[in-house]
């Protein structure tokens, strides 16, 4: 109509978004408050979380320290792989880690409560909690990334920034998808939830390694099915201009967004099938 209404559509859209996300924000805010109110406990959790990151870093260091170069990477290069992959996993763990508890929720029947609320189930599950303590582990990973960028003399070019952003966003998405995929499978194996550890935590372990050392079946699993190699090794090979390895050309690192899309397609499919199974009487 008039010139002044020109800004209205944007504002209206924001208002709708605010209203839509209000329920999720309300739950998450309460979770954050609850965690911060138990100060001693929270500090201890932060410390533990940081320690986990440090010990995992120490394992990588010990191994590379003993022989110098593994799978075509030296200690400095693998530091970058570890940092990127662990940062992606920690952030995903912070927001999605509690999806691991789905098996317990199914056993106790507490998932039923989500059915009584007018929001999509998966969104409710994901936003039902947040583990702030994981920021400590993410901080260790950030330190590793920064150190890795410095010791490898990575030039601060737009290409570097673009690749890092692509790698991190895709890495977080892939790791988060693994949690959702695991949740979908837990509808079927309530007692065997540990099975899903194979690709959630096995995936985390794999993502911090040089994928060049894997046998073909392992490559197939962790590059193409559960694409966690896109969170660390593959982008680093592209970033540092290293030569690729069999099956894994150097440009593959740029395909991380495709891997993220694939991982989410897989995860949403598993979730959908899982929910169907539950409604069919799995509980």
């Amino acid at each position, binding site marked *: 109509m008039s010139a002044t209404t020109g800004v209205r559509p944007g504002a209206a859209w924001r208002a709708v978004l605010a209203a839509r996300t209000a329920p999720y924000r309300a739950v998450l805010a309460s979770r954050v408050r609850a965690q911060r109110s138990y100060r001693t406990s929270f500090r*201890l959790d932060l410390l533990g979380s940081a320690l986990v990151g440090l010990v995992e870093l*120490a*394992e990588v260091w010990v191994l590379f320290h003993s022989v110098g170069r593994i*799978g075509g990477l030296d200690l400095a290069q693998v530091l970058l792989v570890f940092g990127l992959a662990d940062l992606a996993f920690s952030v995903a763990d912070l927001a999605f880690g509690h999806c691991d508890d789905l098996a317990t929720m199914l056993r106790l029947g507490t998932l039923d409560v989500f059915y009584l609320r007018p929001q999509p189930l998966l969104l409710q599950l994901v936003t039902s909690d947040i583990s702030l303590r994981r920021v400590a582990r993410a901080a260790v990973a950030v330190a590793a990334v920064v150190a890795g960028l410095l010791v490898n003399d990575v030039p601060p070019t737009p290409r570097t920034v673009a690749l890092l952003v692509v790698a991190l966003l895709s890495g977080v998405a892939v790791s988060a998808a693994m949690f959702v995929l695991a949740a979908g499978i837990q509808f079927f194996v309530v007692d*065997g*939830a540990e099975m899903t550890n194979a690709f959630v935590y*096995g995936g985390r372990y794999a993502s911090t390694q*040089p994928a060049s*050392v894997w046998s073909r079946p*392992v490559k197939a699993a962790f590059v193409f099915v559960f694409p966690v190699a896109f969170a660390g090794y593959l982008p680093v090979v592209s970033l540092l201009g290293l030569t690729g390895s069999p099956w894994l050309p150097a440009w593959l690192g740029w395909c991380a967004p495709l891997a993220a899309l694939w991982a989410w397609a897989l995860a949403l499919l598993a979730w959908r099938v899982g929910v169907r199974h539950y409604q069919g009487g799995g509980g």
Partner: protein
Amino acid sequence: MRATLRTYFRLLAAGFRRGSAYPLAALGGLVANATFGLLKVGILFATVEAGGGTVGGYDAGTMSAYIWLSQGLLGSVNLFGRTAVADRIKNGDIAVDFVRPLDVQAASVTTEVGTRLFALLPRGVPSVLLGVLLVGMSMPTTPLPYALGALSVLLGVVLSCTTVYLVAVSRFWLVEGRGVEMLYMVLSGFLAGLFVPIPLFPGWLRAVAGATPFPSMLQVPVDVLSGRVDLPTSAGLVGVQLAWLALTVVLGAVLTRAGRARLEVQGG
């Protein structure tokens, strides 16, 4: 005394049965074990290759034995730091256990050992078989290392349970007992040699690990069973395991008594 021995045997059997109650959980554990095993094969074989065929005294065959034996023991050695008795101390149910004519420490450890030993069947043996079939490994050809190895595995499992019991009784004094559990969980795997074999550690870190009971839970049983170390050394290592076991048992008994006294004074 004979009657109580029978009671403990029953507890052991009950723990064993508890393990068998969740076959799907055992299968899940096996799948996870095998996945981690294959990943360890990738990175550790590459390490051996990078070392020119041997690293820290390991070649491909002994490294494979290390990987699959340690994966097989993973379900049986408690590297998580959590037990049922910790919850009972936290919520006060332990008071009930104290009035029973059973030693709380012995009963708790026995039940736990039973459950853990059961895991050898669905998780331990299949993991090792997978390793033999998929990758192949060097194993001793004489019977003695197996006999000594079986003893060492048993000692490793029991030692992990007596050590975790120490973690549990810390709850008598610490409100945030979770912190000790967390510390145990983070450090035990690393210092027991779960992801990187201890001989690959730099000297000072090897010394740090040696000052804890953790290597005796995993690295030692694997070394003895795989025959990576010779028989006299193996016997010495089993002796070290026994020493750690004695130390943790005595310490556990003292702390249990002190915890009970504290409970009686404070009335739970």
